[in-house]
């Protein structure tokens, strides 16, 4: 296994389409790096360039201690798992897994030993004589993995390996992949468009959009300190609420004005994010995650100056929690990035966002405790945990952190608190 380094990687297709620009990434030995982004963002192209199926038009790819740009896939010694598995239909499972070794003229008994070993790791020993068409989706997926691990390559490349499975199987295979990766200590690059997959699987996650790297970090870093509105909106489910707000100082201190609401900003947040002071009396993008809101009745130590009184338009009881929808009379953030994210979710989401922008009323989702009595059509008081509020420059979409950019927030996030409970 080896480290993989991408230096200023770029790809422009012959027809002039720019797929990837300036991607620099270090994937340390044994790390599972997830490349995540909306469809068509260039993440698969990055993977294919590493595999050697696509020629990089600029930059360098280093696998181990070799620059592999000019090498054929055969010489690069990386294994790839394809989205549709790409199993050879005319070969048995055994032959599928053994092919790469056979090509390299591995001695028969070693070949046999390694195939059996791979099959054992994946739990497909009893399928070796079958052909791909006789296997279920999950089994095919395992065979595809087997074909990769039997080679003991420098790195594994996985291109949306779970997207052809049904939801239940996907969750199961997800933990399976994590287990195998851990067992083998394999440097792995995993491409997906599913942020849940990225968060649950990745040691490191790289968010890519329009061929450019947006942010790289651990799942927690991306969740707590998204570097821009795109990452903020992309990571987390339900997505972060993003709306236009104004920062202002009054006699009680600095506060965020969202529509008709005034939300006091705790001093610790200000101390942590000096740069916010530069945005006083200017509109900013204010982001708050659904899980950082709580029914005021349930919130311990709720302060009046962080409560909004709203009319619940709609609620969804999830059993363990309650999703509460309400409108706030402030426009949603309506930048190109956010529109793109909405479009990714479907036409309805985009249309809804457009309506919200037109009517200057943002739809907010709050994730509150299951015991909340908030119900559709009734008023509710929602407490907003301002310590976990996010602020972004409206023009650039960049996060406003001040001095502490890149340092994980010392405050426990809602996610962690929930886990502790």
């Amino acid at each position, binding site marked *: 296994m080896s480290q993989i380094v991408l230096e200023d990687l770029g790809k422009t297709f012959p027809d002039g389409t720019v797929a990837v620009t300036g991607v620099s990434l270090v994937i340390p030995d044994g790390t599972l790096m997830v490349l995540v982004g909306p469809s068509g963002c260039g993440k698969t192209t990055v993977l294919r360039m590493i*595999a*050697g*199926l696509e020629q990089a038009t600029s930059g360098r790819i280093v696998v181990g201690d070799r620059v592999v740009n000019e090498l*054929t*896939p*055969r010489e690069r010694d*990386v*294994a*790839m798992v*394809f*989205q*549709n598995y*790409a*199993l*050879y*239909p*005319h070969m048995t499972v055994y032959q599928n897994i053994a*092919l*790469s070794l056979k*090509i*390299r003229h591995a001695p028969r008994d070693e070949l046999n030993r390694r195939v059996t070993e791979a099959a054992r790791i994946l739990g497909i020993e009893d399928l070796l004589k079958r052909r791909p068409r006789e296997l279920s989706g999950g089994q095919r997926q395992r065979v595809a993995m087997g*074909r990769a691990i039997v*080679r003991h390559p420098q790195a594994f490349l996985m291109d949306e390996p779970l997207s052809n499975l049904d939801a239940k199987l996907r969750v199961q295979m997800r933990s399976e992949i994590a287990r195998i990766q851990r067992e083998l200590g394999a440097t792995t690059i995993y491409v997906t468009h599913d942020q849940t997959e990225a968060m649950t699987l990745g040691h490191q996650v790289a968010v890519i959009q329009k061929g450019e790297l947006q942010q790289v970090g651990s799942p927690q870093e991306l969740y707590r300190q998204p570097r821009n509105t795109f990452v903020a909106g992309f990571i987390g489910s339900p997505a972060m609420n993003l709306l236009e707000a104004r920062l202002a100082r009054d006699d009680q201190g600095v506060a965020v004005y969202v529509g008709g609401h005034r939300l006091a900003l705790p001093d610790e947040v200000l101390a942590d994010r000096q740069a916010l002071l530069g945005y006083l009396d200017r509109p900013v993008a204010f982001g708050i995650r659904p899980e950082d809101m709580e029914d005021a009745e349930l919130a311990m130590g709720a302060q009046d100056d962080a409560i909004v009184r709203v009319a619940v338009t709609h609620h969804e009881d999830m059993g363990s929690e309650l999703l509460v929808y309400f409108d706030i009379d402030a426009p949603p953030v309506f930048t190109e990035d956010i529109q793109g994210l909405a479009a990714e979710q479907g036409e309805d989401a985009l249309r809804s966002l457009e309506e919200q922008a037109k009517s200057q009323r943002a739809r907010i989702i709050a994730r509150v405790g299951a015991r909340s009595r908030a119900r559709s059509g009734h008023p509710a008081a929602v407490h907003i945990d301002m310590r976990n509020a996010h602020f972004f420059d409206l023009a650039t979409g960049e996060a406003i952190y001040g001095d502490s950019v890149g340092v994980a927030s010392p405050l426990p996030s809602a996610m962690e608190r929930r886990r502790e409970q």
Partner: protein
Amino acid sequence: MEVIERSPETQPALVVVPPSRARVFARRGLAIVKEVCWYLVVLTVCAFILLPVSWMLTAALKPDLAPIYTIPPQWFPSHFWHWNNFYRAMVYPLFPFLRYMINTLFVVFANILGILISCSLVAYPFARMKFRFREPLFYLLIITMLVPWQALVVPQFFFFYHLGWYGTYLPLIVPAFGGNAFFIFLIRQYMRSIPKELDEAARVDGLNYFQIYWRIILPLSVPVLTVCAVFTFIGNWNNLLGPLLYLNNNNQFTIAIGLANMFQNSANSKTNLLMAANLISMIPPAIVFLVIQKRLIGGIATLGLKG
């Protein structure tokens, strides 16, 4: 506006009233009539095709001196049952039937081998690889199909003659190793329908282009290769002109030319034996068809879908 009268068959399915017995019988009766008509049509067509064969069989079973070309023709064997005519045809001294069969099989299989190797080798890069001038070259190949073979017969003959190949099997076999535009086209179309990811997976697995062709693409192209093999088999089995032009020794003759020769001399020969030989020579293609029928239809069907 025209009022459309609803026949019982086109009653909407929503009607809950169960159809009366009479109506059920009427419907069933109609179905039977349809079926019978259909069979009559098929049988007529079959008879049209099989009657000459039946006439051949009648002739083949006649004794040496019985008149063959009677008017009206005798379509079915009725009086004579000389089955040993078939054996006599195979061992007739002036007509080395078995020799012809072996020669023909040799030419046929050499051609199949040539076609399969050359056409798949050419089709593979056209279908799966990227290279400069791929499209123009392919169109050039397709255009060669437009040259009528009649135009090529004479120059080809001189060409092979000057190579010293006259009187050998080479002119009948070697061209197959040079490919055939139509088969290349057919195989390319089929290969294009094989998922691209298989090549990519194979490349990542460490296969080079030839190994991908040999281990992945070729085995997956068996349906279309079968089609090409069968077409080549039939085409060469029935080929009369080629052997007629290039072969000059009775021992080299293929079955088609052998039968033709025998027919020309039938004035002093035995038409009943000729017919028997004819019938025997029809057997191998028939067997090929029967054995590969399912595959062949499958292959042609997928070609139709994916081409």
